[in-house]
């Protein structure tokens, strides 16, 4: 048990997966000597060799497409997409091939491919380096989509994702890479495709994932000071979307606010709002409210803090919810 950063926990989880299964490969741009631009694969090529940690040519479609071929040959490739905004050249291979091949083959072929995507903003970066494209993947049947938010989950979820026989899009909250938490690698992890209540409460359900979990927890603390008890749920799995956990909570609290960085329109919050409303219609005391990025492209870094959901905007939504 030691304080470990989220990024380091991912690195440890990858290492563990590679040790446990010789079929696990890592591939992507700069994942070798450099260890990735965020150092998540640091040291792995040195220890596992160039055959297992592959610096690829600079082309995302090639990365995903060859990973599919490697998976068909029995390997378990873990692809790194350098930044969220660079996944699109590989998108056809993800949505038209990776997502559908198991289905197309009536279950004969399995595609245990993990696509790691550092995502989200708040790091002062230039264009294409701060996107939150999770909804594009969660709308695609055949993909599993998960997001980690803390070191413990990062360590275990990356291993669980690699062990999954379906393709998994694995989102990593890049602005939390350097945040620390206690990591006990000896515990038995919870199942990956489930949401987790990270703070119990009675008055309103606050749902978040990835980088926004921290903000949600801070909002719950702040609200407590005003006498409001907020239950915070870390979604963790966006596909399958564990709405059941949220529904159960909202049946108790009667109110819900969902937070994410992605543009609000057609973000995960839309789906969650639709489901929760349908399943909790008579328990709801106010409509499910969404706090998301605005419906604009991600803005220049100097105004990203204004664009991104933050403590104040979450509390504002909580206020509005209670105002109904």
């Amino acid at each position, binding site marked *: 048990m030691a304080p470990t950063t989220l990024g380091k926990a991912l690195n440890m989880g990858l290492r563990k997966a590679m040790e446990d299964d010789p079929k696990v490969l890592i591939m992507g741009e700069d994942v070798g000597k450099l260890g990735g631009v965020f150092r998540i694969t640091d040291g792995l090529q040195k220890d596992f060799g160039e055959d297992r940690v592959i610096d690829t040519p600079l082309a995302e479609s*090639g990365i995903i497409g060859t990973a599919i071929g490697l998976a068909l040959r029995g390997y378990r490739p873990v692809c790194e997409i350098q930044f969220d905004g660079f996944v699109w050249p590989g998108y056809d291979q993800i949505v038209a091939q990776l997502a559908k091949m198991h289905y197309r083959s009536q279950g004969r072929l399995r595609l245990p491919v993990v696509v790691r995507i550092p995502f989200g903003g708040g790091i002062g970066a230039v264009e294409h380096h701060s996107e939150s494209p999770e909804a594009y993947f969660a709308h695609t049947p055949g993909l599993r989509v998960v997001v980690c938010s803390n070191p413990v989950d990062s360590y275990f979820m990356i291993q669980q994702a690699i062990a999954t026989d379906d393709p998994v899009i694995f989102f990593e909250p890049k602005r939390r890479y350097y945040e620390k938490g206690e990591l006990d690698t000896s515990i038995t992890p919870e199942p990956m495709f489930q949401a987790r209540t990270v703070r119990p409460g009675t008055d309103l359900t606050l749902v978040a994932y990835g980088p926004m979990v921290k903000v949600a927890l801070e909002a719950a603390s702040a609200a407590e000071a005003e006498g409001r008890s907020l239950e915070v749920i870390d979604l963790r799995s966006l596909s399958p979307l564990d709405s059941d956990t949220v529904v159960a909570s909202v049946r108790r609290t009667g109110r819900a606010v969902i937070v994410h960085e992605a543009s609000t329109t057609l973000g995960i919050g839309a789906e969650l709002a639709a489901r929760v409303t349908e399943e909790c219609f008579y328990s709801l005391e106010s409509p499910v409210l969404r706090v998301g990025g605005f419906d604009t492209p991600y803005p220049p870094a100097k105004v990203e803090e204004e664009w991104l959901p933050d403590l104040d905007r979450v509390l504002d939504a909580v206020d509005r919810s209670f105002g109904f």
Partner: protein
Amino acid sequence: MTTESSGDLATGEPAGASVPLVQLLTPDGERVEHPDYEFDGTDEDIRGFYRDLVLTRRVDAEGVALQRQGELGIWASLLGQEAAQVGSGRAMRPQDYAFPTYREHGVAMCRGVDPVRLLGLFRGADQGSWDAEKHNFHLYTIVIGAQTLHATGYAMGIQRDGAVGDDDGAAVIAYFGDGATSQGDVNEAFIWASVMNAPVVFFCQNNQWAISVPLERQTRIPIYQRAAGFGFPGVRVDGNDVLASYAVTKAALDNARTGNGPTLIEAYTYRMGAHTTTDDPTRYRVAAELDEWKAKDPVSRVRTYLERNDGAADEAFFAAVEVEADELATRIRRETQEMPSPEPTSFFDHVYVEDTPRLTRDREAYAAYLESFDADAAAVGGH
């Protein structure tokens, strides 16, 4: 490998111009020599090719007919491309793996796939129902070019398995068309294969057309010369010559399996039919072109060879192949007509290896919903 110097490339020599191609059997059925390639098989092998060609053509004709009769939604005919497919398909060893487009019916048959299995996709009963891993023949890929990357990745897997390097090595063959050469994916596959020295053969059937778009819209030089730009050999073979297609593919696969990396083969051929049964080629090409290619028919030249060379094949042989083709056609027809449609709730299956809770719920709810109609029908009738 015969590759052209690039000196003429820069001048923009037209892509279809009379470029040397590897030919071992002329349209007139004469066997000819080539400095780099020879066909090392026997007349028995050639009889085998003949049978493959005839069966392939018959299956294809049956596909067209079944579509016309409403048994299939669509069919992609390979008419004219039989030799390219049978030659390359027969050049594979059991351990080799093929990644086809949607038109490789002849290759499929070489890999032991029952042709009825191919029809299911075109009927709309499934999306490819053969066991890819049993036949080392991947499912059809419809998105143009995507499979070339899968093939390259698979070949990288072979490298990692240590299954490349000597004569027993394995290799991969990726099929695609002339139009596909324009897709980013295909060019990325060339890069990967070249940089990784992956054991993969890129087999491009240049049938001169991508639906209505002629070759000149995809390239201004012969396709096989593309490979030189990526640092590996390219060769143009007479795709209507089964012997040459076989010999060139075999050499390339052996090159790959022994660790010498990729080759691009351009099988120069012609799509004699429509793009698919929904296409109308009279809108974009002239009949004269077809006549020209009829003279180069891939099947009849083998028959001519076998007939002309005493002892190569007798009447009984040809008759037997004919009977076999008829029987195959009859069986295909029957089994296609009898092919069951998927169950109404089958589309919930195999989205994932393990169902999600929601899929399970949706399937159950939908089954109950469907049952309600039966109940309704038993009572007053539904909406």
